[in-house]
C-alpha cells in the first residue's frame, strides 16, 4: 500500500499533517490511537519500522510536551515497484503530568529496544511492555535521572557504584550459565554476555550492552551543524563515512540545500570504498575465528592495499574529515579518484583468489555452513537490516529503497542469499564487494568537474528530518532537529547494529559455544555505534 493510500486509510486517526517534504510525511496522531495506527501501517499496509525517536519539547511554546516520532518505511507514492520507499512518521504527544505512552512492542517487535531506551533516557514509561529491565543504564545509574531531558545538564556528576544487571536464567538439572565479558580475550569491544547452555549447546543468550555509552547524542545538543559532524564521524570508527553522510543528508534536507553533483558522486565512491574495506575486514574476521590463517592473511593484505591507497589520496585511513554538511570539505583530484578506482578494480580481481581459498577448504565450509541460521520470519519480525536481512533472503537496501546521493542513476543489483547461515552472510559480502567495484567504475565515468560544496544557510527551527544511508553493516538512520538559533535540538542515531542486536540472540540458539565468535562476526555488530 502506498503512502497516500495509508494516509487516506488513517484519516480518522490523524489529527494533522505537520509537514510533507523531502519524501517524509510527519502526521500527528492521538496517543490513545497509536495501537490502531501502528497495526494499520505494519500489518495491513506492509510498513516496516525505521526508527523511534523521542524529543523533549517542553520548552517550546507550541508543544510544551514530549513528542515521540515513530518512523516507518512505506512504499513511495511515485514509484511503480514496491522497492522504492518513503518515510512516514507518526508523532504523538506525551505530557509531563502523565508520562506514559502505549507500548507497541506487542504488535511490532522491532520497537522493543527503542521503547526501553525512551524510558531510560526520557523517563517516559511504555505501558504494557513485557521486558522493562534497563537497557542503556547499568545498575549504578540513579533511577530518577533521565539524561536526554533538557533540564538535565550534560556535565552533571553522578556517583557510580558497581554491579551487573540481572540476566535471564535457564533453570533445571543440567543447564549452566557461562558469563563472558565485558573485557574479552581478543582485540574487540566490550559487552557482557550470559550464555545459558546445556552441554555444548546454547539455549539462550542475554547480552548486557551500552558499556561504551559516551553520551554523544547529549553532547551534540547545542552544537552547530559543522562541529557535530566530527562527533558523527566518530560514532563508529569503521563506518564513519556512512555516519557522516547520513548526518549530512539530514542537515541538507532540513536546510533545503542541493549538494553539487561532483560532491555526491565522490561521496558514493568513498561510501563504496568504505563498504569494500568493511566487508573484507568481516571476511577476514570470519576466517580468523575459524583459524583459517592463510585466507585471513590474504584478506588482510587486500584490506591494507585499499586502506593505504585511501590514505595516500585523502590522508585518512578511516574517511575522517572528507565529508561535511553541504558537500565535501575538500575536492579530490580526478587523478586521485582514478587511483582509488583502479585499486578497487585490482582488489576486486584479487577477490577471486580469496574466494577460491575459502571455498576450496572443506574444513572451513564445514564450520560456516548451517551455522547460525537466522530465519526469514525472524528477520521480518524483529526488523533486521543490512547483511543479516539479505543473507536471509529479505530485500533491505537503503541504496535501492531511498536512492540518496546518485544511487538512482547507477546500475547495480541487490545481492540476496537463501541459506540464512554464516556462509550466506559471507557470500552476500563477496557479492557486494564486486557490486561496489562496479558502482565505483560507473560513478567515475559520471564524474564531472564543478564545485564540491554549497553553503548551509539558516536552518528552519524544529523541523525534523531523517538521514538514511546504507553502511557496510546495514542501514543507519539519523534523526535530526535544529532549534531557533541554528543549533542541534535533538539528534538520535539509530545504527544498523542497534537494529540487528536481537538477531544475534536468535541466530545463536541451538549452536555450540565455540561457534559464537564466528556467528557474532558474521553479523559484524558494532558496540560503539549501538551504544553511542
Amino acid at each position, binding site marked *: 500500500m502506498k503512502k497516500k493510500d495509508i494516509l487516506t486509510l488513517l484519516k480518522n486517526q490523524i489529527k494533522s499533517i505537520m509537514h510533507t517534504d523531502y519524501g517524509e510525511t510527519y502526521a500527528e496522531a492521538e496517543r490513545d490511537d497509536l495501537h490502531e495506527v501502528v497495526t494499520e501501517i505494519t500489518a495491513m499496509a506492509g510498513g516496516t519500522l525505521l526508527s523511534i525517536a523521542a524529543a523533549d519539547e517542553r520548552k517550546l511554546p507550541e508543544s510544551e510536551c514530549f513528542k515521540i516520532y515513530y518512523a516507518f518505511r512505506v512504499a513511495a507514492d511515485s514509484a511503480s515497484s514496491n522497492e522504492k520507499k518513503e518515510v512516514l512518521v507518526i508523532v504523538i504527544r506525551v505530557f509531563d503530568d502523565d508520562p506514559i505512552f502505549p507500548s507497541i512492542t506487542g504488535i511490532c517487535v522491532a520497537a522493543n529496544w527503542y521503547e526501553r531506551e525512551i524510558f531510560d533516557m526520557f523517563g517516559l514509561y511504555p505501558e504494557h511492555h513485557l521486558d522493562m529491565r534497563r537497557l542503556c543504564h*547499568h545498575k*549504578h*545509574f540513579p533511577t530518577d*535521572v533521565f*539524561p536526554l531531558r533538557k533540564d*538535565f545538564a*550534560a*556535565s552533571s*556528576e*553522578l556517583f*557510580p557504584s*558497581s554491579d551487573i544487571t540481572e540476566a535471564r536464567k535457564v533453570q533445571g538439572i543440567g543447564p549452566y550459565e557461562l558469563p563472558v565479558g*565485558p*573485557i574479552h*580475550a*581478543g*582485540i*574487540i*569491544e*566490550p559487552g557482557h554476555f550470559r550464555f545459558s547452555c546445556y552441554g555444548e549447546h546454547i539455549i539462550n543468550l542475554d547480552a548486557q550492552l551500552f*558499556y*561504551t*555509552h*559516551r*553520551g554523544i547524542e*547529549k*553532547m551534540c545538543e547545542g552544537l552547530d551543524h559543522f*562541529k557535530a559532524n*566530527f*562527533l558523527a564521524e*566518530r560514532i*563508529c*570508527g569503521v563506518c*564513519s563515512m556512512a555516519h557522516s553522510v547520513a548526518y549530512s543528508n539530514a542537515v541538507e534536507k532540513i536546510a533545503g540545500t542541493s549538494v553539487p553533483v561532483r560532491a555526491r558522486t565522490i561521496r558514493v565512491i568513498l561510501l563504496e570504498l568504505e563498504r569494500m574495506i568493511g566487508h573484507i*575486514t568481516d571476511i577476514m574476521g570470519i576466517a580468523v575465528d575459524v583459524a583459517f590463517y*592463510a585466507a585471513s*592473511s*590474504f584478506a*588482510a*593484505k587486500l*584490506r*591494507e592495499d585499499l*586502506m*593505504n591507497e585511501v*590514505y595516500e589520496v585523502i*590522508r*585518512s*585511513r*578511516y574517511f*575522517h*574529515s572528507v565529508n561535511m554538511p553541504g558537500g565535501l*570539505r*575538500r575536492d579530490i583530484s580526478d587523478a586521485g579518484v582514478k587511483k582509488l578506482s583502479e585499486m578497487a578494480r585490482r582488489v576486486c580481481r584479487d577477490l577471486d*583468489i580469496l574466494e*577460491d581459498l575459502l571455498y*576450496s*577448504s572443506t574444513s572451513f565450509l564445514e564450520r560456516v555452513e548451517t551455522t547460525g541460521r537466522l530465519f526469514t520470519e525472524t528477520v521480518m519480525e524483529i526488523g533486521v537490516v543490512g547483511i543479516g536481512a539479505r543473507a536471509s533472503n529479505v530485500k533491505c537496501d537503503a541504496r535501492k529503497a531511498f536512492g540518496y546521493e546518485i544511487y538512482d542513476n547507477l546500475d547495480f543489483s541487490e545481492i540476496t542469499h537463501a541459506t540464512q547461515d554464516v556462509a550466506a552472510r559471507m557470500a552476500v559480502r563477496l557479492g557486494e564487494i564486486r557490486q561496489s567495484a562496479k558502482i565505483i567504475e560507473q560513478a567515475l565515468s559520471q564524474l564531472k568537474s564543478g564545485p564540491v560544496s554549497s553553503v548551509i544557510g539558516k536552518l528552519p527551527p524544529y523541523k525534523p528530518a531523517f538521514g538514511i544511508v546504507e553502511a557496510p553493516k546495514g542501514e543507519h538512520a539519523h534523526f535530526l532537529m535544529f532549534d531557533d538559533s541554528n543549533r542541534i535540538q535533538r539528534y538520535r542515531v539509530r545504527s544498523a547494529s542497534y537494529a540487528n542486536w536481537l538477531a544475534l540472540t536468535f541466530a545463536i540458539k541451538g549452536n555450540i559455544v565455540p561457534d559464537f565468535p564466528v556467528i557474532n562476526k558474521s553479523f559484524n555488530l*558494532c*558496540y*560503539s555505534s549501538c551504544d553511542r
Partner: protein
Amino acid sequence: MISILKNILHTGNVTERSSGPENIFTGDQSPLVSMDQEKCGKCGQHECVKSCPAGAIELNKAGVSVLSKKCIECRVCEDICPVGAVEFLKYGAGAAIIKMEAEKLENEVRKNFGGSFHVRQLDLGSCNGCEHEMVSAGNPFFDLSRFGIDFVASPRHADCILITGPVTWNLREALLRTLEATPKPRVVAAMGVCAISGAPFDRNYANYGGAEKLVPVDVYIPGCPPHPYALIQGMLSVMRELRKKK
C-alpha cells in the same frame, strides 16, 4: 592444500622493512602539524583557536601551537588559516625524519624482555577505530609480532595495558579490576586522543574524558586513530618507560 600453498608463494613477502618514519612524541606540539611561526599571527584574529572542534589549539607567546594530546587531525585549522601557516604532514614525518630501522625495536624486545613483550588491549568506549588499527598493526604489512610484541587475552600475562576510548562510566569498574589483575612492573599506555584527553568528546554524565582522570598513564600514543606506524613507535616508548620502572 596445494592451492593454498601456491597462493602463499605467489603473494610472497609483503612486510614493510622499516617501522616507519620516527615521530617524537615527547613535546606537546603535535608531530603531525608543521607550523610556520613566521607567518602565524599575521592574521591577528586567531580564527583557528575558536574553530577547532577539539579545542586543541592553544594561544601562547610564540604564536599558536596544536596540542598533540587533543588534535583529532580534522585539518580545520589548515583550511581556515588565512596566511597558510599550518600544514598537516603525512605520518607526522617532519623535516627531520629519523628513519628508524626495524632492528632497533626488535633488539629492544630481545634484550630487555627476553624476546616477548605482551600487550593487553582495553576498550573503554572507543569508536573501534583504534582497535582496527591494532589489528592492522598485526597484518602482513606492519607485522607487529615480528618484533616479539603480542596482544594477549589475559591482563595477568601483560606487560602493558593499552587503553582506548574516553573511559565511560559503565566501564570504570572493568578498568580498575583489569589494572588490579596486571602484574607490576607494568606500563599503562593511552592510544588515541580520546583516551589521552577525551577530545573531541566532552566529559559528561557518561564518560570521564580521558583515562588520566581515573588512573595514572605513562605513555601517550596520539592520533585519531594513530597510524599503525605510530602504534609501532608508541610501543618503543612503552618499552623505554618499562625499562625505567624495572
